[in-house]
């Protein structure tokens, strides 16, 4: 249907452009990928107390993510068992129960039917009938504070699925002695392009110099924003389609990579953060956490970029040429007001619809999508950079994308076309 072509002898890796445009491929992706892979739902810090809840769309399904009165986390399909209306219509909040606005059925935050008006019209035992309860997502698991759902009852557990990406989630957790939290405020946007283009773009080290020339010039222009480290690093296969690039870069990091723009107050803060890191995790990990940037894609659609700030980003297609994106900032719970302020300042400098870089990524993705309309003889994308390198892949090669595409190809081939 749309298979990749990998020819090691010729150093060639080709992705058919039908993978980005074909409606049948798109529908098969839901079956082969979104209905079988572990998908990011949310972070524990978003539901701080018993009764906390939020609603979110995951793989086209409306989900109600709750903490019940025992403090347990639940992922419920947000549809009333009675007639199917959305039970919770708010984005987030705190409530011990949810009443469907259509006929007034009331559900606990673990999804069980508590009361219903006019119960005398129903047979005895109706209320406890399993079919009358809100439905739990088949599987909900957590890795650290990251919650994932799986719409398939069977299959590998989350930790097995995450493979080596789990090590990097642990490294991220080590940013803080007291835990990480989602900073309030969500960047919610959309791109008129195929969703896999954003996965590629999110860890594409090759495009920075041209696509983001104005951002790099901004760092040079702005007195003190430019650090001393050049762009350089490696790409790693994390198995199961997950991959990352790890590299040094000239921008400041609020996890102890100071730049002069932050002033003496900032230097004192960053020195303190670094020495805490050093005493807690040792020199090797402290150095990596503070100085190295990591762009990681967890197959199929979770991006965790630990760069000038930490962003958690997930996205779903609603059509071959359209995706909806949610992006959050992740930060140490205990960080000072100064450090939080600079983290958010740093985040918005590069990232998101109003940043100095993301709009140009969006332009690139949308222009790719438009370019695919040529069809005909121009059928393939080239993802072969660095393919036959003998001494390991550079961060600006394309091995990380090849890892992603091999998994995509494998999963798509598993489903009857």
């Amino acid at each position, binding site marked *: 249907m749309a298979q990749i072509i990998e020819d090691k002898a010729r150093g060639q890796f080709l992705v058919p452009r039908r993978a980005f445009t074909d409606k049948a491929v798109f529908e098969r992706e839901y079956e082969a990928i979104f209905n079988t892979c572990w998908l990011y739902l949310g972070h524990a810090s978003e539901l701080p107390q018993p009764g906390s809840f939020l609603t979110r769309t995951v793989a086209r399904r409306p989900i109600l993510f709750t903490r019940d009165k025992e403090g347990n986390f639940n992922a419920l399909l947000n549809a009333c068992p009675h007639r199917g209306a959305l039970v919770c219509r708010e*984005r*987030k909040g705190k409530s011990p129960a949810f009443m469907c606005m259509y006929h007034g059925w009331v559900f606990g935050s673990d999804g069980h039917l508590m009361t219903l008006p006019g119960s005398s019209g129903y047979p005895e035992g109706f209320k406890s009938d399993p079919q009358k309860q809100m439905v739990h997502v088949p599987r909900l698991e957590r890795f650290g504070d990251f919650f994932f759902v799986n719409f398939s009852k069977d299959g590998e557990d989350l930790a097995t699925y995450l493979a080596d990406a789990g090590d990097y989630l642990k490294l991220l957790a080590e940013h803080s002695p007291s835990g990480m939290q989602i*900073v*309030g*405020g*969500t*960047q*919610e*946007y*959309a*791109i*008129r392009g195929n969703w896999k283009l954003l996965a590629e773009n999110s860890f594409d080290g090759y495009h920075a110099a*041209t*696509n983001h*020339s*104005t*951002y790099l*010039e*901004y760092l040079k*222009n*702005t007195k003190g924003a430019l650090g001393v480290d050049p762009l350089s690093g490696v790409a790693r296969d994390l198995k199961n389609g997950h991959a990352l690039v790890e590299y040094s870069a000239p921008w400041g990091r609020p996890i102890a990579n100071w730049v002069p723009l932050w002033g003496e107050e900032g230097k004192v803060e960053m020195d303190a953060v670094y020495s805490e890191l050093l005493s807690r995790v040792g020199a090797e990990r402290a150095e990596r956490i503070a100085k190295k940037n990591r762009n990681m894609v967890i197959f199929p659609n979770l991006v965790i970029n630990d760069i000038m700030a930490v962003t958690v980003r997930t996205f779903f297609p609603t059509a071959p040429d*359209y995706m*909806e*994106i949610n992006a*959050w*900032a992740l930060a140490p719970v205990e960080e000072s*007001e100064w450090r*939080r*302020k600079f983290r*958010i*300042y740093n*985040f*918005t*400098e590069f990232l*998101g*619809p*109003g940043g*100095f870089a*993301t*709009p*140009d990524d*969006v*332009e*690139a993705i*949308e222009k790719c999508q*438009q370019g695919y309309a040529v069809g005909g003889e121009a059928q393939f994308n080239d993802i072969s950079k660095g393919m036959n390198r003998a001494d390991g892949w550079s961060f600006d090669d394309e091995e990380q994308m090849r890892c992603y595409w091999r998994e995509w190809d494998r999963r798509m081939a598993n489903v009857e076309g």
Partner: protein
Amino acid sequence: MTLQETLLLRLRVEELLFEEADLIDQWKLDEWLALYTEDAHYYVPPSDVDGDTASAETSLFYILDDRIRLRERITRLKKVGAHSEHPRSKVRHLVTNVRARQEGDVIHARSSFIVSRAKDITHDLFVGHYLHELVEQDGALRIAKKTCVLDMEALRPHARISIIL
């Protein structure tokens, strides 16, 4: 305040807001920046917080610029390498429902906006309200703070605040 004073204040504020809108629409970005004080701030909060009260020091925003970054924003926008705006889009700001009140040296203005951005195959709208804080400097009104609160559920179906709202 008498009705006449209220109207005069509003007219004065409207004059500045319309001037600002016109300069952005014409891509006269240096002239636009000159309307801002040296310690000015410019904000665009996200849609899932109360944009009237949210703080960019504790919440993720779309844009939180001090004067330095505002200058760098327009420096960037004028470059060929600002791909999202090259060729530049057609932009039109409609600013209405202007209300203004004076508190000490600061004039607080609220207004409604619709901003249209058209570029090649796309045409997108931004809808919301502005909160301006204006101060008098050298006999003219200048913008000390502008918050563009989007009255939208998300930046969809588009993604780019690559223009000045």
